[in-house]
């Protein structure tokens, strides 16, 4: 595809802009910002990837992965401001997801250890873990706020912080994993996954595209489970002080 043909696809952006103006949706500015940002960000990434792929040196691959983890951590941490040390906890979670994923994929020679494979798959694993972390943190906070009296009840009966927060922790872990599991149940029936579509458009054998897509799906399931469970168990102790009291200042309980 040339840049000229790509420019023609900007016609698609005109549609929401015109609709926004006609219906007074007030989304024109956001649409333009989103379009410009996506062009700039993806072009930069494209050039960086081209450089890294051509260089194909381990240090570049590691730097790219580090950059992904930093960007994902900075994005996700906003949702967990009530948890002390949330930045390093998210970073450690994403790093663990990446290490486990790549150990399996490269270690068992499922993919070759080249930038072309490692970087896109790392991006998917880390990106999914980031979304899971955000979902988990949102739900965990909401659960504690809604059921703070239950937490207090268990503490008051001589329960440990872990026992007191158990129900909320499990509910948040489950809730954050459900979208990943549910979306996999209908995959291929409603829409073809992005990566598979991309490969097919680029001329790959559909069966091989399916194989890679399955690899990605299994990887995402594992990254979802690891990220919400690990982040959950890293997070909950900081919600209590040494006297085993729930630090209520961090929340806005309903009662």
């Amino acid at each position: 595809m040339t840049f000229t043909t790509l420019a023609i696809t900007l016609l698609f952006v005109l549609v929401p802009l015109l609709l926004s103006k006609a219906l007074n949706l007030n989304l024109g500015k956001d649409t333009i910002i989103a379009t410009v940002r996506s062009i700039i960000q993806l072009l930069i990434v494209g050039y960086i990837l081209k450089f890294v792929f051509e260089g194909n040196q381990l240090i570049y691959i590691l730097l790219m992965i580090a950059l992904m983890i930093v960007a994902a951590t900075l994005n996700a941490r906003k949702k967990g401001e009530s948890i002390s040390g949330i930045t390093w906890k998210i970073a450690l979670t994403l790093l663990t997801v990446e290490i486990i994923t790549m150990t399996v994929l490269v270690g068992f020679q499922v993919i070759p250890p080249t930038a072309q494979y490692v970087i896109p798959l790392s991006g998917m694993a880390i990106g999914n873990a980031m979304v899971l972390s955000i979902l988990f943190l949102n739900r965990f906070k909401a659960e504690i706020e809604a059921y703070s009296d239950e937490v207090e009840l268990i503490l008051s009966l001589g329960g440990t912080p872990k026992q007191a927060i158990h129900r909320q922790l499990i509910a948040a872990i489950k809730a954050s994993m459900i979208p990943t599991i549910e979306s996999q149940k209908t995959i291929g029936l409603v829409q073809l996954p992005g990566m598979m579509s991309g490969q097919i458009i680029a001329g790959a054998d559909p069966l091989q595209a399916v194989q890679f897509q399955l690899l990605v799906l299994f990887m995402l399931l594992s990254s979802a489970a690891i990220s919400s469970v690990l982040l959950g168990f890293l997070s909950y102790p900081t919600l209590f002080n040494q006297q085993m009291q729930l630090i209520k200042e961090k929340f806005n309980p309903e009662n």
Partner: protein
Amino acid sequence: MNPINQPAICFENVYFTSNKQQILENISGKIAEAKITAFVGPSGAGKSTLLKMCNRLISQTSGKIEVFNQPIEQFNPIELRREVGISLQSAPMINGTVFDNLNLPKKLQQATLSTRDAITILKDVGLDETFLKKDAKNLSGGQKQRVSIARTLINKSKILLLDEITSALDPTATKEIEQLILSLNKKYNVTIILVTHNIEQAIAISDEIWVLMNGSLIEICASNQLKNSSNPQIQQFLSGVLK
């Protein structure tokens, strides 16, 4: 007022600040063992905060609290909370049956409550054994409070803290819970501290009353002496709540 032989809880110059706001100021006093003490005062006086300090659900900012003559900080919070049980205002029930709720304190210690003990404790709070299998979330307010008290008693607490437990109940249920408090105090010889905004209730069932206003403890007196207090703040408060 009778002198206190053995205080169950002793407060000495206790202060509590939250979000830069002074909630409790210079609280000193002794809670008599095996007696019923009521904390009364208008909303926002700091009654519930003081109550929750007795089992370290809240810690004082400064000052000293002793439980059975031992500084509260020396207790393991878990053991302290089993010894000083609390029934919360909302009587929260966990999902499940009344038995599941009664079994909760045991479950937290990796043990199980026997059905026989569950029936005994239910009878102590005026409920029969048919309640064991009922869904706890479907109980009435008064029944929830009874189960909540029974659940606290499973830990064989020596001190029982009751936080506004009749505030959401109708007059009949309130009277029944008041009788229950008196009978538990007698039967188990348990020290009871209750927070209430119901002055008549405090006078009727407690041995001693602590009056809190704006975070300060302004009076400690025998319950039958409260109405004779010469403190103008108390007289003003009583004239507002007593008809």
